[in-house]
Structure formats: structure tokens, C-alpha cells
């Protein structure tokens, strides 16, 4: 137990659900990003997946919409301590997207319009754990929440769910992304409270 701050009792907002350690519930949808919001017209949007052997796969906005979609309802956890429960999304499972991609890579470095990057083990993007989403709560995904398309990996802290998704590089070696290079945890499991390096 930490040292006690005299006179601090806390609010102890009891909730029926269990949250990851250090998190509190929020009802609104806070926005966090390192710079201004990029605005990418849908006609100009495209997604590239590049493999470790130089293979390239591409989807335009239209092609993305033609893929079978799912409507995940998931809890999300931001490293700045808010958690939001039961958020509704629509998008394409990475299992569908990566189905025909030939790779032996273990890592993914995800990149965004605007230059943001974040890294994940490839296995965390597969088996029904991750989507690329273009609708939130029944509406088109707003630019400040990553529209037209963002990644959604709800079992990791939300900085891994890169907004304004543009590309996924499949790599045989792990390469830290933007926040990971700035001292944030490489993996970012909210349930193990992996906020910063060394956690």
C-alpha cells in the first residue's frame, strides 16, 4: 500500500463492473492526440499493409466498405485513466483483412495519416481481438475520434488503437512507435496497468 495522504477518503464511485486498476468511468468520449486532427477525405483514404518480404496489399475506402463487417460492442481504456464501457463500433475484423496476406511476421507497426505510429504483437490483432472501424455509435466516425478509419484493439490501452489509420507494416522485429519511444509501455495491458516503461 502507498503512503497515506491524511484526510483523503476518495469518492469510491462504486460500479457494478470491475475496471482495470487506476481507471475511472466516464460517460463522455474524451479526445487525446499529440497534434491537430488530420482530415482525410474518404475518396483519398487508403490502407496499405506491407509485409516483411516487401509484399504490398491495398484497400480503398470503397473496397473497405465492401468487406464483411462486424459490430463489436466493447469497453475501452485510456492510459490517461478513463474507461468507457459498452462502446458500439462498426468495422472490419483484422482477421478478414489479413486473411490473404502472406507473412511470417510477429510484429505490426501501425501508422496514421499525420505521422503517428504504434506497435503491437501481430497476434494481438488476430483471432477476433481487433478491427478497423469506420462507424461509432451508429454514426460516421468523426475526425477527432480517428475518422474516416481507426484501429480498435480494446484489450490494450487506447493509444494502441491508432486513429486516422493509414498503414500496417508487418515486421519480424519489434519496433516501438510514437508513445512507446516516449517512455510508454511497449505492450500496454490495462489489466496489468502497463502504463510506462518498466511497469
Amino acid at each position, binding site marked *: 500500500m502507498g503512503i497515506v495522504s491524511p484526510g483523503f477518503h476518495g469518492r469510491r464511485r462504486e460500479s457494478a463492473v470491475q475496471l482495470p486498476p487506476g481507471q475511472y468511468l466516464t460517460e463522455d468520449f474524451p479526445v487525446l492526440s499529440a497534434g491537430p486532427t488530420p482530415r482525410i477525405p474518404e475518396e483519398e483514404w487508403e490502407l496499405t499493409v506491407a509485409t516483411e518480404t516487401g509484399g504490398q496489399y491495398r484497400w480503398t475506402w470503397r473496397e473497405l466498405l465492401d468487406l464483411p463487417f462486424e459490430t463489436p460492442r466493447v469497453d475501452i481504456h485510456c492510459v490517461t485513466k478513463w474507461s468507457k464501457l459498452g462502446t458500439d463500433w462498426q468495422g472490419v475484423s483484422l482477421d478478414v483483412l489479413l486473411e490473404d496476406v502472406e507473412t511470417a511476421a510477429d510484429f505490426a507497426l501501425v501508422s496514421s495519416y499525420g505521422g503517428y505510429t504504434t506497435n503491437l504483437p501481430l497476434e494481438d490483432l488476430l483471432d477476433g481481438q481487433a478491427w478497423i472501424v469506420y462507424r461509432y455509435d451508429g454514426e460516421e466516425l468523426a475526425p477527432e475520434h480517428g475518422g474516416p478509419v481507426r484501429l480498435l484493439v480494446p484489450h490494450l490501452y487506447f493509444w494502441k488503437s491508432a486513429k486516422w489509420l493509414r498503414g500496417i507494416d508487418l515486421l519480424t522485429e519489434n519496433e516501438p512507435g510514437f508513445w512507446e519511444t516516449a*517512455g510508454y509501455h511497449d505492450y500496454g495491458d490495462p489489466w496489468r496497468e502497463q502504463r510506462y516503461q518498466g511497469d
Partner: protein
Amino acid sequence: MARAAVPGRLTWRVARLAETRRETDTARTLVFDVPGWPGHLAGQHVDVRLTAADGYTAQRSYSLSAPDRVELTVQRIADGEVSPYLTDVLGIGDPVELRGPVGGWFVWRPDAGRDVLLIAGGSGVAPLMAMVRARRLAGSGARFRLVYSTRTPGDVFYADELRRPEPGLDVAHVYTRVAPEGWPRPPGRLTAADLGDGPPDRDCFVCGPTGFVESAADLLLARGHDPRRIRTERFG
């Protein structure tokens, strides 16, 4: 985006409140003694952890508002869990736990050399004030403009310090609800005109509530600022 600095492993340290200053009716600056503090850059923040007698804990992030001491400026949120404790209950000598400094992106380094535009909304001025103070401390010749939006003149943090003339620092207040009598600008939200007419080749730092940051960053983009030179921090 450029890569940011890599801090080492972050450990929790015991901080004791050494001094407090009143900023407004609802905000206080807290100065802490933190043995072993490694130092920090202007713009970084700390995580504060409070622990109750029964072991319950709460954590929040606060920007460092001075470059050379562990100073936080906390705005009391009436129904908040942590900020009212920090502003009203924590007494001189009382302990809290801190870890940091955190964040290597939203920082100003005195050797950067370029002119700077700072845009603050409410308590978002805290990390920007650390930059203003770091500039002074380093004797930097970089020109700074601080555009500081508050509801009323009574909500301005560091009012005396910002009123003192300082060569190379230009401070513009934007009041959204109530302006002082005779103030040339009618109360209202930040507009492009408030950003001044300096050239857009400056490093911009924008900090405040999400909606404010979003609209200020959009104004900067519309004025031709390079998105790679605009850094934002949102207090949620």
C-alpha cells in the same frame, strides 16, 4: 512526427507539500519537496497518487508549471475526487506520491531557437507557464506569444507575473464571458484574429480542454501553420 526523448523507468516518490500559492478563488499552486527528483523539461507532467487510510487509491495527471521546481497548479473541480483534496485539504508537510516526469513530446527546450506561439484554455496554461518561465530562466532570445483564454479576468492564473512586462514575451488575454471594463475585445471564443499576425513558421503549443484544443488547432491549420509544428495536450 519527430521521435521524443526516452525517459528511464518511472518510480513513485514521496512528495511533501512545501508551499502553496493562491491563483484564483478555485485554483492553487502547490510546491512540493521531492527527494531524488531527477529534473524535468517544461511541458512535462506528473502522475499524482493519493491513498486513503483503507488503501483506496486515486491517480490523476498534473502538468509541471515551473521548470526548476516541482510545482503544480490545480484547478478545483467542485465534484471532483482528487482536485478538491489537493486545493483544499492537503496541508504543508503532508505527503502524496508522485511519479514522473512523464511525456517527451509536449515539451519546449531552450535550445530550440525558434519563435513560439502558446495557446492556453483555462488551467491548460500550467505547462505553457513552465515554458514561459523556462525561457526566462535560460535567457532565451526566442520570441514568445501567449494567447490565454479564460472565462473572466478573475480566472487568470499567474496574473501578477504575466502582467509584468518581459522583453520578447507578448501576452494576449481572451475572455469568453466577462471582459474588464474598456477592454478592446468583446467577450467571446478564440478567433483567428486573437492569434496575432506573426508568421506561421513558429512552434505552437496548445493546451486546455478538448473542445478548446480542437478549435485552436483548427484555427492554426487554417492560418497555414505546419501540422508537424503544432503540439497539443488535452486535459480531457
